[in-house]
């Protein structure tokens, strides 16, 4: 294993083998150094956007959902789109770290912590999206008091709860040895609360052989459980739509299609943040280009999968020529929703495909943009799944229109800002690379 990393380093121009002292110093530097005014300004800006969104939500709770652009027959809009979208982002962490840990792919080592941080930072925002969408958020507990198990929404509640808890556990357990490293190396260098956090977080970790054995065993077991959960979560999110008879939603492919879409999107988010962290913290020599090339190939494969599923779904609908289904289909291809539909096809397939195929040379730039555009494309995908189907009901009730209201924009912006804020704050408190995994190599 160390050979491959050494080879990677040689490839990017480093001749000597990896030096753990240097790695630790570089990874822990952002935790010690003061943030600087630019980071502080950015963080405060994000916090302000988030606060505005919270105010908008308070207004919405006071006035009820009339402040949104929703109506009849489009009953679900941005909040549900964002819910599916944030869950998709969260799939970065588990996908990369669980799949790659199980298969023991060496190039994953510098990526796993960033991936898991994305999961932890995005899941709370995904869950709260659903709560924002409720007409009576004050009755949320009814879901636990009077559960009705035939509802796919309740399957979601179960899956996502399990997913969130397991993800947190996974995140924390992977952090224990690194907390210990922080505790040992940063004593006296950081502020009191950070020292306390590292001391408590390390949970008395000494790094003995027995500890390491238990730790690795637990990580593997959790990886396997998480993999199953990751599939179940997004399948169920798809089922929420697929289990109804609504034209455009009622398709057996929707579960797997959502999983692939989420994996694609999660990998996009990961690519984006990897490049960001690599640049911002000058970690080019620990996150070798070879790893980014592997990430690019993996991302490219998922882009192709996305194209394949979309093609299969569209051809099936078109060939069947079912009247109600075709009304939705035509609205997407040629009608009211054609702009978002074709933007989605470009954003989820053609643009990332082009950027990734031609990305061998400009790997950083292309990965960043492919990840970013892929994520916008996936938002549009969720939009073109949820809204056009709503606008074309079975019976001729008239065509629905839906435009986001100011409140919806504010909450949307706030949730995105909140996600970035949590991620950046984590990056200032926790080591963004899994030191023990790099050490292991």
């Amino acid at each position: 294993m160390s050979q491959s990393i050494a080879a990677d380093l040689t490839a990017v121009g480093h001749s000597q083998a990896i030096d753990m002292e240097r790695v630790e110093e570089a990874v822990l530097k952002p935790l010690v150094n003061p943030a600087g005014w630019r980071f502080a300004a950015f963080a405060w800006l994000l916090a302000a956007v988030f606060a505005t969104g919270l105010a908008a939500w308070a207004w919405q709770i006071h006035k009820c959902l009339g402040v949104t652009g929703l109506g009849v027959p489009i009953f679900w809009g941005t909040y549900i789109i964002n819910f599916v979208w944030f869950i998709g982002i969260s799939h970065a962490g588990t996908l990369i770290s669980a799949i790659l840990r199980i298969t023991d792919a060496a190039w994953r080592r510098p990526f796993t912590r960033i991936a898991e941080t994305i999961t932890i930072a995005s899941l709370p925002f995904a869950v709260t999206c659903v709560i924002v969408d409720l007409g009576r958020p004050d009755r949320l507990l009814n879901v636990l008091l009077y559960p009705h198990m035939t509802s796919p929404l309740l399957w979601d509640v179960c899956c996502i709860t399990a997913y969130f808890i397991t993800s947190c556990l996974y995140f924390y357990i992977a952090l224990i040895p690194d907390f210990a490293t922080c505790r040992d190396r940063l004593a006296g260098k950081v502020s009191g609360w950070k020292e306390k956090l590292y001391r408590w977080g390390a949970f008395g970790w000494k790094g003995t052989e027995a500890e390491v054995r238990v730790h690795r065993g637990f990580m593997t077991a959790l990886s396997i459980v998480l993999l199953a959960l990751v599939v179940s979560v997004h399948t169920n999110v798809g089922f929420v739509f697929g289990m109804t008879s609504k034209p455009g939603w009622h398709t057996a492919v929707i579960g797997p299609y959502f999983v692939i879409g989420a994996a694609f999107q999660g990998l996009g988010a990961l690519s984006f943040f990897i490049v960001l962290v690599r640049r911002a913290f000058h970690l080019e020599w620990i996150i070798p280009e070879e790893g980014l090339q592997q990430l690019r190939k993996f991302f490219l494969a998922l882009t192709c999968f996305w194209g394949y599923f979309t093609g299969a779904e569209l051809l099936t609908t078109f060939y069947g020529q079912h009247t109600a289904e075709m009304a939705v289909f035509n609205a997407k291809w040629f009608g009211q929703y054609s702009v978002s539909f074709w933007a989605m096809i470009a954003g989820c397939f053609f643009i990332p495909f082009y950027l990734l195929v031609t990305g061998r040379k400009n790997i950083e730039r292309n990965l960043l943009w492919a990840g970013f555009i892929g994520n916008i494309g996936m938002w549009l995908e969720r939009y073109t799944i949820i809204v056009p189907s709503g606008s074309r009901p079975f019976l001729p009730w008239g065509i629905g229109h839906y435009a986001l209201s100011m409140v919806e924009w504010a909450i949307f912006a706030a949730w995105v800002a909140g996600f970035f804020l949590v991620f950046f704050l984590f990056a200032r408190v926790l080591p963004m690379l899994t030191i023990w995994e790099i050490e292991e190599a």
Partner: protein
Amino acid sequence: MPSEKPSKTRKEFIVGAAAAVAAAAAAWAKISPGKKTASSPAKSAPERRGHRWGMVIDLDRCTGCQACGVACSVECNMMLGTPEEASLGRVIRWLKILPETTIRDGRVRQSLKPMLCQQCDDPPCVHVCPVSATFLSPEGIVGQVYARCIGCRYCVNACPYTCKFFNWDEPQWPQDVRMPFNPDVSVRYKGIVEKCLFCHHRLQRAKDKAREENRELREGDYTVACQTVCPTQAIAFGDLNDPKSDVAKLAASPRARRLLEELGAEPKVIYLQEVS
């Protein structure tokens, strides 16, 4: 030849196994009380005991005058609604006229359908509710528990007839409109889903009256608001399980059909229309 023998036994085995599977399937089909497949509204009636409330709307009689909609709004304390709410489709009317324009042989035809909750026997909205706020009563009325509904609008999305309604805002009534509220019907508020309940408050009244008079519920005891005001008597209402009732007889008409029958929700609102 030795090679023939095993092949024969294999064939016998497959045939035998197939027969056994078929027999088991037949036996299962006989003992399991599972769902009936494609049944006509009239045929499915005798399979259930007790009342099974249903409605028959004769579209060949309906003039589209909307008296039913007005009666429904008054009877069930419907929100008034503003022009802004109307433009967003947010005004709630449990009973609405659905206009349908079709082109056949180059001719444009306009048909009008009074649309209300179809009171499905296998209601898609009930299956998807995460908190059991909507349910199918033993007498076949799809109910809604306002006090439990969390307003997720999943049932509204699942209803293929678009006959469930969400309160997007706090409904507003001027004081003089509040005065003649029907005291038997609860007034709804913001953030919850509501729907046509087949005037179930009238069923309670009818049952109370029958109990007082120490008798069974009779045909005509339980009427619904839209039915009573229809000037052309296009709406019939009653017990589909009672073969002598008007609705049961009308439901057996060759003109009878149900909307989106192919979805299998088994609605109990039946439309009569001559197929030209």
